[in-house]
Each structure stands twice: as C-alpha cells, then as structure tokens.
C-alpha cells in the first residue's frame, strides 16, 4: 500500500487525566509522503501528532500506553532524548510564532542551540532553509529586520524554515493555514508539495479540500478512534466506512 514506513503506532492509548483521548491507535505512516489527519474538533488529531514529537511530555497529567516507533526505535523508550526527537520531528503550529528577533536569527537559533557556531556555516544553513521554505527571495534583502514585520504567510514560512534548519526528517503541521489568507494558504500548499519529496509531512487540517489537495494519505479520526486510513484518492472518492463518508460529505461534524 505505501512506501517505507517512518512512524508506527501500536495500540497507542493516551489519557489526559481520566479523559481517554486516544484509543488503541494502530497505524503506519509513510516516509516522503504527506499524510493528512482529519476529523471533528476534539477527535484527537492534534493530540496524536503531538505524541510523535513528545510535545505531550509537557502536559500534566498525561499517560501514554502502547508504542510509537520511529525508524523502528521506541520514541518513548529509555535513553530517548525528547530534545533530539524534536530536532528530527519538527512542528509548525496554527498561529505563526516567529521569535521576536530578526529573520536570520529565527532560522539560526536552532542550529546554534545544537552547537553550530561557525558564521559561514550558519549563513549557509539560513539561506538553504529559507530557500527550501520558498521565502528566500522575499527576505534576502532584509534578513536582519525583525521577523515580526513579515506578513502572516511569510511568518508561517519562516516557521517552516526554522524547522528545516535543524535537519528534520518529519515535519508536523497543526492546521498551518488556518490563520492565513487564501493566497498565503496556496503558497504553503505548494510548499508542502515540494517538501514531501525530501521529508515526511503530517498535516492536521479542518479543510476537506485542503486534505484532498495536498495529501497522499488521509487518516480520519473520531472521538479518539482511528476510523479509517487510506490513500487520499480512495478516502475522498469511495470511503470504506460510513462514518468517514458522513463526515467528509458534511452530514455531521
């Protein structure tokens, strides 16, 4: 069915206190593809992707059972450094959140934290990351201006560049276009199409049309359960589960 698997979940369950937010999730996410997570609010999609980069470690109380494997290694196993995980599995959030620094410093921040101090190397990383995020041409003449002066769409692409700067393998995107206008959204979607050639992209979205446009695979979740997972074309043309069809056709949700 799919190309090489990069993340596998086996009987993954998560509780926020007594709230059973993820129920026995078993799935395999393909590398170098885009997978969209869809479902009504509160279904667990953001919770699930936050499991992939251990962001839920920062939530208390939060209990996880089951396993999440990344390249066959347990992400929650002993000796697995969450900071290193977040370098390899980066995240872009719904609201663009550039640091109150220059564009250059935003992108260079991560590599510096991870020990890169050589200026030429940093310049190279910043340029390459901004190029990969399709932002370089728009900011190359004002790299040292405040990033807060960029437009919403540019700020979001800056956040993507910031993620790319630390050389991830997976990019998690939690409704990355919700706060953007249609033109900025289109640019992000075009960027996703390019990024998936080199990275695994996982995107949470409320837009059915966006999911059908940008993704190769789609996962539909409902009340903490994974209802259906399959090729996007099949999900949106002829879903197997009635619940999936009722959701994507707007009969509920």
């Amino acid at each position, binding site marked *: 069915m799919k190309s090489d698997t990069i993340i596998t979940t086996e009987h993954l369950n998560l509780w926020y206190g007594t709230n059973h937010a993820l129920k026995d999730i078993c799935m395999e996410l393909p590398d170098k593809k885009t997978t969209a997570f869809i479902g009504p609010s509160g279904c667990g999609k953001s919770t699930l992707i936050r499991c992939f980069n251990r962001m839920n470690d920062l939530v208390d109380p939060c209990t996880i059972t089951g396993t999440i494997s990344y390249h066959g290694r347990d992400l929650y196993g002993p000796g697995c450094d969450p900071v290193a995980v977040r370098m390899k599995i980066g995240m872009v959030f719904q609201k663009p959140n550039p640091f109150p620094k220059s564009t250059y410093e935003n992108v260079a921040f991560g590599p510096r934290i991870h020990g890169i101090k050589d200026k030429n190397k940093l310049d190279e990383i910043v340029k390459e990351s901004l190029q990969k995020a399709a932002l370089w041409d728009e900011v190359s003449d004002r790299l040292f201006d405040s990033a807060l002066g960029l437009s919403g769409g540019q700020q979001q692409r800056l956040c993507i560049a910031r993620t790319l700067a630390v050389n991830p393998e997976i990019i998690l995107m939690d409704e990355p276009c919700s706060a953007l206008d249609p033109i900025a959204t289109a640019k992000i979607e075009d960027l996703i199409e390019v990024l998936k050639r080199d990275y695994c992209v996982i995107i949470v979205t409320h837009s*059915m049309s966006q999911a059908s446009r940008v993704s190769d695979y789609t996962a539909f979740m409902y009340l903490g359960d994974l209802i259906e997972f399959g090729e996007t074309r099949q999900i*949106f*043309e*002829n*879903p197997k589960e009635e619940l*999936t*069809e009722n959701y*994507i*056709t*707007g009969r509920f949700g």
Partner: protein
Amino acid sequence: MRTEMASIHGAVAEMGEYALVMLTESLDALYVNDKQKALSVIQKNPSLTVQYRTLEEEMFRFIAIYQPVARDMRKMVCSIRLIYNFERIGRMGKDIAKMIIDFPDVNHRPCITSISSMGEAVTKMISDCVTAYLKEESDQILEMYKRDDIVDSLYEIVVEETIRWMNQVSVMIPVGASYLIIARLLERCGDQACNIAEMVIYMISGERPVFL
C-alpha cells in the same frame, strides 16, 4: 446543499425521461409513418437543449461552491455525464423524426418488425437506466451489457433484412437507406444506455464496472 442536490438529481432524471419520450415518439411515428408526430418530436428539441444547458450550469456552480466529495462527488460527476448522454439520445430521436418527414407515402412495413423489436429493447434499457439513477438502485442495470449484445444482434438482422428488401424492391432504396441509418442510431442509443448504466453503478457503489 442537500436541497440543491436533490433538485438537480430530480431535474436530470426528468431530462432523461424527456429524451426517452423523444426517442419513443419518433419510433411510434416511424411504425405508422406519422409525419405530424415526427414534427412534434422535432419541436421538442429546443426544450431539450435548454434543459441541458441549464443543468450543466447548475452543476458547475454546485461543484464550484460546495466542492463535493465521496458519494456527493460521484453523484454530481455522474449527473454531468448523464445529461450529455440524454442530450445525445434526444437528438437521435430528433434525427429519426427528421427522416420520417422525408419518407414517401408507401408501404414499408416489411422492415418494421425487426426494427420495432430493436426499438423496444433500447427504450426499455434507457428507461431502466433513468429509474436506476432516480432511485439510486442498480439491480436492474447490472447486466446492461448483455441487453446491449441483444440489440447489436437485432441490428445485424435489420441490416440484413433491409438490404434484402432493397434488392427486391429497388424503388424503396431511399427508404431502406433511411432504415439503415435509423437502425444505426438505435444501436448507438443502446451503447448510450450502457454508458449510463456504468456511470450510475459507479455513482451508487463507487466501483467502476467493466462492461465489455
């Protein structure tokens, strides 16, 4: 959205019925050489065109506004394809009627039996397709290809009989030539019915049948 979709669905089925009436009435006119009836079929054509254009615009608008997916998408795609098929069927009815206008007032009954069997088979196929589309039930159209095979066989018989008749009664050659064209149009209507059945089955099940 649901109301609009139901309205479009009903209107497409009505267009199918209208096109079928054009074909059926043209054949009725053929069997008794009724030029008045043939004329009334021709006069139905502008209305068919209006229905086609109106429905096409409504469906394009629906797709642009609602971006349907899954069964809604399949229904809309099927409906767009069906109005093209129905428009072709209605026009073939009109083409048959136009030929009847030019028929001489002579007895051409020898050819009628086979072609009436063919006409009956084809109109029943189309009728079943329209019903299947309207009710969203595919039981009656799953083996449409077998019925089309029968129509193709009847076509061969009509051609053979008509040619034999033209050889025997040379003054009827112009009429015979029209019969050959009418038989060909009916054979194509049978193919249209198969195309419609395939789309309706896809609309209902999401699977594309293989009609050989």
